[in-house]
């Protein structure tokens, strides 16, 4: 791992919706280095989730560039391959398929890796054990708690061993205890696997767990600073 290598390079991204009526991003710029744990925070509607979705190639920007591991996403021929192998995405609302078991949900990204049936099963079992749900492999999402569903979603995000993990408000729908469990899990995964972790949150308590906090406002990055001391946080909260 080279902590100086820039793995995510967002350059002046603009994104609008509803034929230009809604300006989600107005020239966002961001750099993330290999192995970093970055939290993106800001008030509701500042564009932090939109930025994450664009980095995950779930949508396309109106202008600007996003370069991941040296490849411009706009030039990439197969974005499905990028989504399945280069990034792992954890949504706020887990987005598990309700008709499938936990194990089957974890296996979904593995289909594009062309693993055999038994390889998929073995790997999904291992991932579920890593997130503490090895015994719930055959349980459907409806019978899991909110925190357990989010842990299954994390296991799914790791299915193809991606170097980058993107988490969009992963604790947003959880109580504090479950949220802390999920955050601890993400941190331990990052440390064990050396993945680059970008986490979007509106919760400053969660954000302080990161190595660096990026603050957004009105569709732009306004502060790319490091984790501030407690006194500086009071000033930040006063501004927003």
């Amino acid at each position, binding site marked *: 791992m080279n902590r100086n290598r820039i793995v995510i390079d967002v350059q002046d991204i603009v994104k609008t919706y509803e034929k230009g009526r809604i300006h989600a991003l107005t020239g966002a710029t961001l750099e993330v280095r290999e192995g970093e744990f970055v939290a993106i925070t800001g008030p509701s509607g500042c564009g932090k989730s939109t930025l994450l979705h664009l980095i*995950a190639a779930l949508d396309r920007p109106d202008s600007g560039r996003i370069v991941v591991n040296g490849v411009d996403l706009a030039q990439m021929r197969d974005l*499905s391959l990028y989504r*399945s192998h280069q990034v792992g995405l954890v949504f706020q609302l887990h*987005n598990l398929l309700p008709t499938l078991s936990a194990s089957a949900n974890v296996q*979904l990204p593995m289909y*594009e890796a062309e693993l055999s049936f038994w390889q998929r099963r073995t790997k999904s079992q291992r991932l579920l054990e890593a997130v503490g749900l090895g015994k719930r492999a055959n349980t459907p999402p409806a019978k899991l708690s909110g925190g357990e569903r989010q842990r299954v979603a994390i296991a*799914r995000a790791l299915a193809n061993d991606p170097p980058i993990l993107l988490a969009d408000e992963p604790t947003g729908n959880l109580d504090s205890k479950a949220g802390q469990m999920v955050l601890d899990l993400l941190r331990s995964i990052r440390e064990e696997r050396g993945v680059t972790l970008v986490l979007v949150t509106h919760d400053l308590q969660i954000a302080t767990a990161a190595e660096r906090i990026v603050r957004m406002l009105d569709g732009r990055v306004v502060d790319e600073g490091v984790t501030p001391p407690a006194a500086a946080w009071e000033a930040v909260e006063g501004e927003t």
Partner: protein
Amino acid sequence: MAVSRLGSNPYFIQLGIDPGDLQYFQVPLLAGRHLAAGALNEILLGREAASQLDKKVGDTVELKDRTFTVVGIYRTGNTYEDGGGMLPLATVQEYERKQGLMTLIYIKAKPGTDLDALTARIEQDHPELATLRTLSDYADVDQGLQLMDAANLAISFLAVFIGGIGVMNTMVMSVMERTREFGILRAVGWRPRRVLQMVLGESILLCLVGAVIGSILAVVFTRLILIFPVVRSFLEPQYTPEVFIRGLAVGVAVALLGALYPAIRAVRLSPIQAIRYE
């Protein structure tokens, strides 16, 4: 030949035949005897007709304001014939007011006769006649049967069209409801082609199961309809492989059309648009 109501059957077919000619047709009798020569008020009933009317040899039937005695019951294996009856030719000609007229003339050629030449000569000498080699050719010359065929085709087409709309609508709705699911699959890295293959595969499987169940129900319901005497004397279901294959092909085609459109539409959305779809 005449058609009129008898009992609950509005389409009782009466075949007028000279009693002396019955020997040439070798009509197999199940009970009783053939028409007697010169007898005007006798009738032979087909097996289906006798069953519907609950008549046996010796009973009488009222037809065209006349009373006929059932002297025999036959079974030829032909639905029309077995659902009707045979009466003396002169009697049918009289009550139909078609004295001297005939619907069908059967010609038995000597062995070795050139049938093509015989047919050509008959048609040349009597241009008002149409020659048939087999009874099934009758449908080609009889306007009534041709109209019936056309009506049958139109009704079948309408039934398939209406049923097809229903199937297609169901497939469109069920696939559209899964737009969000397709977005999630795209978000975790599934290629659009894989999503479409999944939808196609599921649709084909659903079609096959539906076709099997539909075929079984079709057989059951056509058998049920035959409970009605009027239907039984007129219609005979044909359960040929071609019928089921055609039904299966139409069902699969319609369901695939219905499934493909929303699936293609869904994978053309960006993953995040599909996930947010409601």
